[in-house]
Structure formats: C-alpha cells, structure tokens
C-alpha cells in the first residue's frame, strides 16, 4: 500500500485513501464530525433592529450560548450561522446578501422575529422586505416580536439538529462538496 492506512474490520481491512472514501464507509466518523461541527456553531453578529437586543441577551450569562460552543464573530468569513435579527429594508438587503455570500459553506440562516420572517409590523412599508426568504435560503424561522432568548436558543438548537442529521456520504444534487442537508 502506498500511503494509505489500514484499519481492521469484520470482513478484513478498509483502505482509506481520501476523506470522502472514509466517510462513505463509516457512519461513526460522520456522526463524530457532525457532533464537533454542531458544537462550534459560530454566529455572525448581524442585528438591524430590536431583535438584536434579544440576540445580545442570548449571548449573555443567563442563556449563555458559550456552553454550546456558540460564540459570535464580527465577520461573515469566520461564521457558520447568520441570524437575521430585525427588520430588513431593500437598501440593507443588498448588503445582507453580500454578507451571506461571503460566508463559507456549509452555512446556515435563522430568520429571527416577525420582521425577518414576513416583514412583520412594517410589512406595509414601501422600504421593508417582506421576509428574508425572498433573497436568502432560511433554515429556521423563529416567531416573536421580538423572540425571547429562550426562543432564539431553541432555534439555534434546531440548527444543531439539522447539522447532526446531515449525511456526508450522499452526493449533493447541486454537485458541490460538503454535507447534504436533510431538508
């Protein structure tokens, strides 16, 4: 064998050349990988309205996101999760979409609160986007105006569940690398 590793198995040895091959053979590794990913869910600080106050509170000592390995980042390039906390105007949507596109795959989006879900209180305004799912794909919607920290935490744990259920061995329909989501 040239450079490949042999590990024992019930019907002989499994030859591991590439990581993908390894993942295809063993779901234990897949689970371990997802486990480590879901416990380092770094979220991007993006607050456009009062939901941002609840977002800050959720990061504070009472709800304490740190114990889940969730810490805030100040740049989308280091973030796994983007929480749209607040009202998005068309002017802001252009910027928000750019920030979303700067995040590396795999990436996740939470729509936090009524404004991000549907436009909420301001849906009759000429300037407000009627829901962020009109311009970015959303994984979890959290209702509330604003949602309590408990609700946001529940939503973030839902994202953890999405990550844990992901299958690396399945080929993605879009042909890109990374885990296939179980949506």
């Amino acid at each position: 064998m040239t450079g490949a590793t042999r590990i024992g198995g019930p019907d002989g040895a499994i030859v591991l050349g590439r990581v993908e091959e390894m993942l295809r053979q063993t779901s234990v590794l897949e689970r371990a990988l997802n486990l480590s990913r879901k416990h380092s869910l770094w979220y991007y600080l993006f607050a456009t309205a009062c939901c941002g106050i609840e977002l800050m509170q959720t990061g504070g000592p009472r709800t304490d996101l740190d114990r889940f390995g969730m810490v805030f980042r100040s740049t989308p390039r280091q973030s796994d999760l983007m929480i749209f906390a607040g009202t998005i105007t068309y002017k802001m949507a252009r910027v928000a979409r750019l920030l979303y596109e700067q995040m590396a795959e795999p990436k996740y989006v939470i729509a936090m609160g009524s404004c991000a879900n549907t436009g909420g209180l301001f849906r009759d305004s000429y300037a407000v986007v009627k829901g962020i799912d009109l311009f970015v794909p959303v994984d979890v919607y959290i209702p509330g105006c604003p949602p309590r920290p408990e609700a946001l935490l529940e939503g973030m744990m839902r994202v953890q569940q999405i990550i844990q259920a992901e299958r690396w061995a399945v080929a993605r329909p879009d042909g890109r690398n990374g885990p296939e989501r179980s949506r």
Partner: protein
Amino acid sequence: MEAADIARLIDERLGAGTASVYEDLEPQVAIAPERLVEACLYLRDAQELRFDYMRCLTGLDLPPDAMAVVIHLVSTVLKHRLILRVETSRERPSVPSVEGVWPGAGWFEREVFDLLGVDFPGNRDLRRILLPDEWIGHPLRKDYRESRAFFNIPTRRAESIRVVHGSVPPAEEG
C-alpha cells in the same frame, strides 16, 4: 412676535402682498417660492426678528394639484418662532433652496426631494438621502405605486411561510 406681525413686517420690507397669513392649528406665514430666499435672509438678519435657527424643513403632498414645503424657524436670541409655508405646483414642484441662509437646511431638502420629489434649485448636493440611488419614484406621494420587485427581491409575499413539520429529526444523543 405672532405670525400676523411677522407677515406685516415682511410686507413692509419686501412689498405688499409678499406674505400672507395661512390659518391652521398654528398660524403660518405663506410666501411665494420666488420671494422665499430674500424673505428668509430678512427673517434671519433683521434685528427685530433674528431667526437664527431652522428647526425643521418638511414637505406636504396636497393632491390634486399642490405641494407645499413647510419651514419651522426659531430665534434662540429673541425666543420666538415661526412657521413658513411655501406652496408649489404638483406637476413640477420646485422651491428655491434656503441652504445658503441656514446651511443645515441642505439635508432636510434632500429628504423632501427623496420622498416627495420636490426640486430645490440652489441646493449644492441634491441627491437621495434615505433611499438607495436606484430607487424609482417618490414614496410619500399619495399616488405612489410600489414596483413588483426591487434588487430582484419581490415586493409582495406570494404565500405564507411553509412550515415543514418533522423536517428536523429528533435530537440525537451527544
């Protein structure tokens, strides 16, 4: 000093018929657009008036055929105030800029231009101030109609959020 007294002073200085009193919740002084700048210079500089502070400049859409710009003035020295009202046509709304009289008026005029489409000849930088530059139309006009999409984002929700129950499997141990 009351609005009627100030209107009389303006008439004495700039000719009869320049200013008139417009009765509203608070009496206002109405001035034609073409006399606005000289009247404002007089209001600012006259020793008995001394309106040194422009508190607010805003616009009104009055369909079917009028628009108005309303200017709130305060004299911090003589402790009196005044509301100026300038009416213009709705077809081609245009009011001369008072940025040269009170420099702070510049951004107020940009806001009225942005949301109502009133032109302010004399303003040095008449661009949109709140909305993106690519915006079409002036949304505070009573006949404003929203376009179907903006930056490729639809401006209407076709349907409510589709909640896929059970899309997330129960949490695994760990």
